[in-house]
């Protein structure tokens, strides 16, 4: 039963924090975003009470919006598709597959990055993603598909086998 701040924080606090950290690539920003998300939860607690299925999407939506605001501060100017987070200089040693995936996700446009993380790393359903991203369910599926195809395309040279792309090359909008 998702009622009361303590229960909601115990259930979603780590997830919201992890999403914010992966979305912004900045643990300090994640701390602020997570805190502010739960401040806003407290401000809207009465309205959310009894709407159990909506609490998780609501929290992720607030966190994603705060994350976009944070990215604007980190990188002034509008966040258009193809905008990437500042990427750390390549390390002296070859990155492993996990690090390559992390970098490729970080280089996705924020809308695609959010869709990919919500589905692949945080296990949201497409109807939940639709609520978070303010899209139809079909729109959420399409956005996730675009993100996934872009990642597969960009990472194909490093994987032992290439994924088939008979259905065409993915484009970021």
């Amino acid at each position: 039963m998702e009622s009361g701040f303590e229960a909601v924080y115990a259930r979603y606090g780590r997830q919201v924090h992890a999403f914010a950290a992966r979305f912004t690539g900045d643990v300090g920003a994640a701390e602020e975003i997570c805190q502010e998300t739960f401040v806003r939860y407290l401000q809207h607690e009465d309205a959310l009470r009894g709407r159990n299925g909506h609490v998780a999407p609501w929290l992720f939506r607030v966190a994603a919006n705060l994350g976009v605001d944070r990215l604007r501060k980190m990188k002034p100017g509008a966040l258009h598709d193809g905008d990437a987070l500042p990427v750390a200089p390549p390390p002296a040693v070859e990155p492993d597959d996990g690090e390559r995936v992390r970098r490729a996700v970080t280089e996705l446009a924020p809308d695609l990055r959010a869709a990919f993380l919500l589905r692949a790393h945080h296990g949201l359903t497409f109807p939940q993603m639709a609520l978070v991203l303010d899209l139809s369910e079909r729109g959420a599926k399409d956005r996730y598909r675009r993100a996934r195809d872009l990642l597969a395309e960009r990472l194909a040279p490093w994987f032992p086998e290439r994924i088939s792309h008979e259905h065409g090359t993915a484009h970021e909008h």
Partner: protein
Amino acid sequence: MNTERPMNTDPRLCPEIRALLADHLDGLLEPAQAARASEHLETCAACAGEADRARRIHAALAAPWDVPGPSTDLPLRALASARARRPGSGRVVGVALRYAATFAAGVLAAFLVFRAEPARSLPTTEVAHPVPVAAPGSDIPNGMPEGAAPTYSPRRIR
């Protein structure tokens, strides 16, 4: 006797099925499409091999990378911030006090455990991982290995 292949094993279907593999793994196909793909993969070794490769790539993409968890006092700070923005809310104050009491009890317990621990003498023999000492004139402070990650200090929202 009907010698015609069933539709689902028709090799002409292979390109179509392979194009759907990623969507199939992600549960993005309509039920009828998914059933058709599953049926084909059961009978077509070449496409089943492609599906295995797609599954490995899918697993690599979906493996979440580790990130540090939230600081332990984050809920307390959220409650304090909410209280500051909405003064006079008894419920928020009550929850904040419960969190504060839990946090204080933890600090007190850690202190008592620390006090109860007998003082340990430092080993006189060589330690396995000696603390590096900065060279004279170096900017690196003693005990801080070069390239060490900075200590994380959570910031407070104004």
